[in-house]
């Protein structure tokens, strides 16, 4: 069902946060705008239902589904909105699916707007799930996003998570918790840019509970102006498993970046590595690009673009 709540400007933001320049045909989607359902479509394999208590939606993917996408973007275009949404994703055994869930706040009013989304994934056995989440804000009145993601990755399933905060979010507190069953794999790619006086915090806890489960987290961030960032990824290995966490940050101007590495092995067969690096843009990199004819500012932009790619 599509109603007339979506404007041309909304499609521009939807393209930025969910790579959907137009309403997709043949894919499941649910577009939420200013606290209401603006558009929804389901397919034979992917059903989307409003929860009975109205707190959010359930996205149900049939077992054996192959190569389908589901778009679950959220738009806030009114000033002074403060909403919390709980969405559950139930993925049947053997399903291969991509879920795109961005959030865009365009707040041109005088009051701040905030969105707190709780996404819970219950992933069956032998699944392959890609979860893409982009956050973007514009406006001067303050935009707050506090996403919580809880993931239960079933046996021999793969969960790829790509999260990025593009620009314009005044404050974010990201909380991710995952539980990995035997043979499950989770790959997390996190990209974050903060500027102005923005503040971003990312807590992540991954429990590797099943034999031969594995985790990779690659976090890259750029902190500009006087913004601040804090990362706290934690891997807990409870059995024979492997985990690799890599946090890299470029710090600029008068920004501040913190990284708290925490790894916990509760089995002699757990192998867990954490790497963290924070530094300014390397002078040798700038020099190299300047010798190709780029100005210092152009060189800086190229380095950041590559770093976040």
């Amino acid at each position: 069902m599509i109603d007339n709540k979506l404007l041309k400007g909304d499609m521009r933001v939807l393209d930025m946060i969910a790579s959907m320049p137009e309403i997709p045909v043949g894919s499941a989607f649910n577009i939420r705008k200013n606290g209401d359902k603006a558009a929804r479509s389901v397919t034979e394999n992917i059903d989307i239902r409003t929860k009975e208590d109205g707190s959010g939606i359930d996205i149900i993917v049939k077992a054996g589904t192959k190569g389908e996408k589901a778009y679950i973007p959220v738009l806030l275009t009114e000033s002074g909105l403060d909403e919390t949404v709980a969405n559950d994703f139930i993925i049947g055994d053997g399903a291969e699916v991509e879920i795109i869930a961005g959030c865009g706040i365009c707040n041109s009013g005088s009051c701040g707007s905030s969105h707190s989304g709780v996404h819970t994934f219950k992933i069956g056995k032998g699944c392959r799930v890609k979860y893409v989440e982009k956050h973007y804000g514009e406006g001067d009145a303050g935009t707050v996003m506090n996403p919580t993601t809880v993931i239960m990755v079933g046996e021999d399933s793969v969960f790829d998570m790509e999260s990025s905060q593009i620009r314009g979010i005044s404050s974010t507190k990201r909380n991710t918790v995952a539980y990995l069953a035997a043979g499950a794999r989770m790959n997390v790619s996190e990209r974050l840019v903060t500027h102005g006086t923005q503040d971003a915090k990312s807590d992540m806890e991954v429990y590797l509970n099943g034999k031969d489960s594995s985790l990779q987290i690659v976090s890259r961030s750029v902190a500009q102006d006087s913004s601040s960032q804090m990362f706290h990824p934690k891997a807990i290995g409870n059995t024979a498993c492997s985990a690799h966490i890599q946090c890299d940050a470029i710090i600029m101007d008068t920004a501040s970046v913190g990284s708290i590495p925490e790894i916990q092995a509760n089995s002699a067969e757990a192998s867990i590595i954490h790497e963290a690096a924070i530094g300014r843009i390397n002078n040798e990199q700038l020099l190299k690009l300047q010798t190709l004819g780029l100005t210092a500012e152009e060189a800086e932009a190229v380095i950041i673009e590559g770093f976040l790619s």
Partner: protein
Amino acid sequence: MLKFENVCFTVPDTGAEIIKDLSLEVKDGEILVVTGPNGGGKSTLARLAMGIITPTSGKILLEGQDISTLDITERARLGVGYAFQAPARFKGLTVRRLLTLAAGGEISDSDCCKYLSRVGLCAADYLDRALDATLSGGELKRIEVASLMVRQLKVAIYDEPEAGIDIWSFNMLVNAFSTLGKEKSGALMIISHQERVMQTADRIAVVAEGKLRDIGAKGDILPKLTDIFQRECIKKQPK
């Protein structure tokens, strides 16, 4: 044509004199190999030409224009290029992106292939790879050399291009310099200790202790090199 005129360079912090009243010319269409003992000032000369450091006194001229006070970007846009001895690594920046930036615009895969092949690399294996720690020092160095060959330059400066390159790729590199020499598209200044690289030269300059010790045709300088180096070593021995 690139000309150093009575160039001096003193390190601001330590006062150490690295280049002492040095004059040297790299002519259009020629390959000038600059050689000499380690620490003699060869790389400093290259960095002065590129504008990474500025002469304490003296002038650097490009086709008669004084470029001594221009910054790196301005010199690059005028047609000066420099392949670093120890190239920088970049997280996320791909070989394709670097070659595109070097070319100053879109570059076809076949052109990328042409230049990467010259340094012994297969484009299909490398174009989408990042210039990060997953590349060996030798691979990175060869990409650095290719990134200079892509450019249309008035003066191309290669700082020890052979360093860290295996023997097979080295042969290709020497052939690439020979080809560039025949094309005579600009002036080439190559800092090198390798006799086979020197064999590609039209002229050889010997720089030691910040001074030009000798310069001349390859055939004149090469037979004298052993004697020159021995004299430099004797000078440095404690008396």
